[in-house]
């Protein structure tokens, strides 16, 4: 689907990113949209975790995202540490039409902040906004008749049937945004179906990732970038994009 594992040929920065969130909020769909700009209405649930990669150009720098898309069901929770260890970025996804999914997202954030790489950049993404913004989804009719089931999954398309799209929204943007601010997270509302807001997540994360640390550590032959940035945990996670650019030129020239 994505670029194959060819990281060694091109000088790019590898960023390990993990997606977390309740089942059926659309984690895999977000990744699919980002990686291959596709949308599958009935995406199979992820078992364990899926792995995809995507390159992302930021100014003159190439980032190679290694994306770990995890299973959402509660009982897979205990496997998650295996996937988020050494991750430099995390996208915690919830479903704007399901209030409980934000609660689950909060526990994920809490866990990441305590257990994961201390420098990890966390983004909070409220998915499925096509279900609550009338213009976005009315154009796509769906042959399915299973309203309930579809609303609950990552398969929008029934919006038109409900007549009053805004009523589907259970998580006000303001509430989630306030929480994100308080917890120090990047915040987005997205639709994997329409593609709205998806690329932005990854761009903003790219800006916030301490790329130079990763570069410096990998150049030093220190092995895994995640471990390296973990070691330099004292530094502030947020790095200005401009700063990056100036420094990265030197880094790139070698």
């Amino acid at each position, binding site marked *: 689907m994505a670029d194959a594992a060819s990281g060694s040929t091109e000088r790019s920065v590898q960023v390990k990113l993990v997606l977390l969130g309740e089942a059926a909020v659309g984690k895999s769909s977000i990744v699919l949209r980002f990686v291959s700009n596709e949308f599958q*209405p009935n995406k*199979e649930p992820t078992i364990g975790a899926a792995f995809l990669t995507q390159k992302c150009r930021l100014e003159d720098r190439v980032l190679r995202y290694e994306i770990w898309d995890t299973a959402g*069901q509660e009982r897979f929770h205990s496997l998650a540490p295996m996937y988020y260890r050494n991750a430099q970025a995390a996208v915690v996804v919830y479903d704007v039409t399901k209030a409980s999914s934000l609660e689950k997202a909060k526990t994920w954030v809490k866990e990441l902040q305590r257990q994961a790489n201390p420098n990890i950049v966390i983004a909070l993404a409220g998915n499925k906004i096509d279900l609550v913004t009338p213009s976005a989804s009315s154009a796509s009719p769906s042959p399915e008749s299973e309203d309930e089931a579809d609303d609950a999954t990552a398969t929008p398309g029934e919006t038109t049937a409900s007549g009053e799209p805004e009523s589907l929204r259970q998580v006000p943007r303001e509430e989630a945004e306030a929480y994100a601010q308080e917890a120090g997270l990047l915040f987005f509302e997205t639709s994997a179906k329409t593609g709205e807001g998806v690329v932005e997540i990854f761009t903003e994360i790219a800006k916030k990732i301490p790329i130079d640390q990763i570069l410096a550590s990998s150049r030093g032959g220190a092995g895994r970038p995640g471990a390296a940035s973990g070691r330099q945990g004292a530094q502030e996670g947020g790095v200005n994009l401009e700063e990056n650019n100036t420094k990265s030129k030197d880094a790139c020239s070698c």
Partner: protein
Amino acid sequence: MSTISTHLRNFKEPTKEQLTQLFFALPPSVNGVSSASGSGHNNTGNSEKSAVGAAEAELEKMEINAVLSLGVQGEEDSYAGKLYLYPPYLAFASLDRKSVRFTLPLCTIRRVERLNARAGIYALSLSLWHGMKIVVQLTSLRPTADLFCSLLRDALKVELQKGKMKAVKPFVKTCYSELLVANATAPGNTEEKDGGGGGGGSSKSAAATDDGGPSSPAADSMYLGGLGLKFKFPGDPKKLREASKTKLWTNYLRTHGRNLTLLRYPQCTRLIQVGLPNRLRGEMWETLSGSLYLRFENPGFYEKILAENEGRTNTSTEEIEKDLHRSLPEYSAYQSEEGISALRRVLQAYSFKNPETGYCQAMNILAAAILIYMSEEQAFWLLEVVCDRLLPGYYSPSMHGTLLDQRVFESLVQRCLPIIHDHFQEVDVQLSVASLPWFLSLFINSMPMVFAFRIIDCFFCMGPKVLFQVGWQIGFVGVQRMIVPRLILFTAILKINGEKLLQIQDDGQFIHLMREYFASLGDSAHPNSSDPRARAITRFQELLLVSFREFAVITDETIQSERRKYRSEIVHSIESFSKRAAIRNLRTFERFTKDQVGLIYDALFKAICIEPPPAVSLPPPSLLTTKDQAEERPETRIGLRTFRVFLSEICTWARTEKIVSNGFQQRIDREVAEHELIDRLFYFWDTSYRGALSFQDLVSGLDGVMFNDLMENIEWFFNLHDKNKDGYLTKDEVLTLSESLLFIFRHEIGDAYLGAVSRFMSNAFEYGDALLPRPEGADPDSEPPTIEHNQPYMNLATFRMVVLADEILESFFETDFSSTFRLEPVPIQDIPNTNTGLLGGLWHNIASDDNRKIFNRFTDEIGKTIGKHQVYTRPAIGKYTALEEPKARESLLTPTMRRTASKSSLTSPSETPANDPSLPTTSTSSSSGSTLSADKSEPTVSSATSAEFSPMPSMFHAAANAAALMERTPFAIDDAKDDDDESDIETDVEDDGVMDEVDAFLEAHDSGLTEAERELAQGTSSSTAVWSSLSAHGCERIDLINAEPVK
């Protein structure tokens, strides 16, 4: 919010018998629960009740050496092996456990004949339902063979009486193989089949079709099939060579039985290896996995469980709904309502039947896959077998089975492919990131479906073929037999890709490589070979080949021992993960540190191990819906019984600890105390009125008491007893409060606390009365107005005053009370642990609770005989020292009493255990202070040093009844009562006359007192000096206490 599960610890190694049952895929507890109405040989079934019991008892299991040969055809070789009678099944496995085997329900046996062959040969000819005859020659000694035959006869009779024979005919009609064979055979053959054995004639009258299907004259077309019949099977039938496969199978099934009577000869396995024909696949899966027997034994169960639970929703059904449209969505059936609803019903039925497992993602994919080949009912039972027996623990909430096999897999890779393993270690790649989905979804969504289904064919069949080695005794392992080929397969995948794997640098590349490999399975394995035959070999064939040829070294035994090795590790990591999660999910730690919260969790976990909370019975959703979203998630809450155990872990007065020495060992017997105070505390902490406490409730509750200072403790204690929270205690509540205090003090040595409580009561009532509001203008000295026992009586201020009036109580509330709550690490071996790590198993065998009890009782008996047995109850507070002893705010201690005190003060400590347990009961039943203490005037341990303290003026004028009380219960001080010392005390419990004798002894040996003691006895008040001299003379002191009574 989190759930705490202890069931992982309840794992038990399967017994030999269970392993055999698993090997032959016998339904569990077939003859345990089924209501047999038949009878044994000496009972003709007249008395139903006893007959059932008798029949169950008599249907013995037995195994015997035998040689199997196909009776009629004689095409096959004979195979030596073992014949197992496990009513209602007869099973056989050849010696190598892989070549030949069968599992026959007894009801498919139409006739058994003893063959009169040459002398010395004992052979039975069995005519089976499908007209085949098999001959088993029993090669054991004659008496054994006779016994086996009689057991077989009994078991067959029972089956006949149960009418099971009649169920066979309608059942086999649901199997496709019948149609297959019937179509292929000449009509004459069919008749022969039906008329074959006269013994099974009853089957012809089988009119009722238990499967609920309509009994049409064209019964042969009734077979059950999957969605594939309507929506097409995946793959190109031509490419799959369906026709020729079907033909081969038809031949095999005609000669070797089918469905219930299938005999598995080597050819069967070979046929399976090349892939099952689509139409037959479902039935063969059923037969090979043994789910066929479950369906046979439980007709109508599937419909019933669906009907019973119709309309029910729970977490599982919600989760199922989410995934229905996401299960093999590319297959056309799952784009239609028909397929979706079939999938929904199967998954729901499973979750209703197995609420503990419920629904796990990946089950939807598995269920969707098997539904292509089989009907809902068949799929339901197959799913049951897969989740329960073949992949135990894979889909459970903790997924421990998955994690365990991941660990085993890793260790196998280490063993078989060390180069790859080392490389992975070096670049820090975890195998399980890729292999976990393979395990969980049986490759169905990892590789092209056509190949995945062929792997599943092998999964249901190949284990025995590849793995069971010659000469294995019955101690082989059945549980894992299906796992083994898969592990081998996985290992093979790694092996084939070995060179490339050595180049990968991280997890991502690893997964990519695997994905590419799976996608190319249909390609030629040797595309550049000049030999066209080699070019024709696909990568998939190569994979199977390598799997089963090169990794035959991975045996069941290996897997079993690896699993044993890692099981405790996995359990431990799951438990510590849930501990971390539980702690993380707390809303607040209150004032505890993380470590302390961890200790609380440990205590809670242990309590749950000992006393599992009742199954989660959530109140109706209407009651549960709160604004707090987090509350909606399932959470472990403990009931009162578990709470008592929990509290006994943390709180010294919530347990009774008896220190028992019997000359051999010294141990502490700990019992969980029961008292109203504990129950009261439970409801006090249950702030959300659920009748159950969560981990958070416990943390908050403990916080409310463990960090208190004097005033806070007094207030806390007051609130605890103020039932209606109106700020006043009633008279009854004052009494209850006193009882609570007495309960806490029940094991304290000496009478100091007892006295304090009785003083408290008299003071309380005196003050309470004095402070009661009087009618306007009434004489303040007049009789106080009477007040009902259940009316508000005493407020906090008064209570505080009364408490502070007594030094003992003051010091109790100041420090002692809080310190009775102790967070101490729970010793590991105290937790009931059945985990089977090497040591764990050993420890469990040797030191099982029962064994320990027996050992303890044994040594106690010996101890008693040799007069060394001693029981001593450890006090809850136990920090009481002479220095803090109330120099009594007592004015009532008269010189005469002093003598009493000194006389009784040497009473042996052994009196305590003998009498103490009765204390709470006797005292709680009394209603006033005086009777209270009077009941219990037995002085307990103290030393001579306590005898005389200069009385101090009492702050209150004690009531007369209190004075009377004082006379009888002088305060005794125990200065030898440090924890260390307790254990050293040795006295004979049994001696009733000990008190008098001790008194006599005291008088006679007065001169034996040391300087220090005499000083003390004379009332020297410079306590520090006394203490130091006491410790200097520690030996004498102990001698004094330990002195044997003079007889």
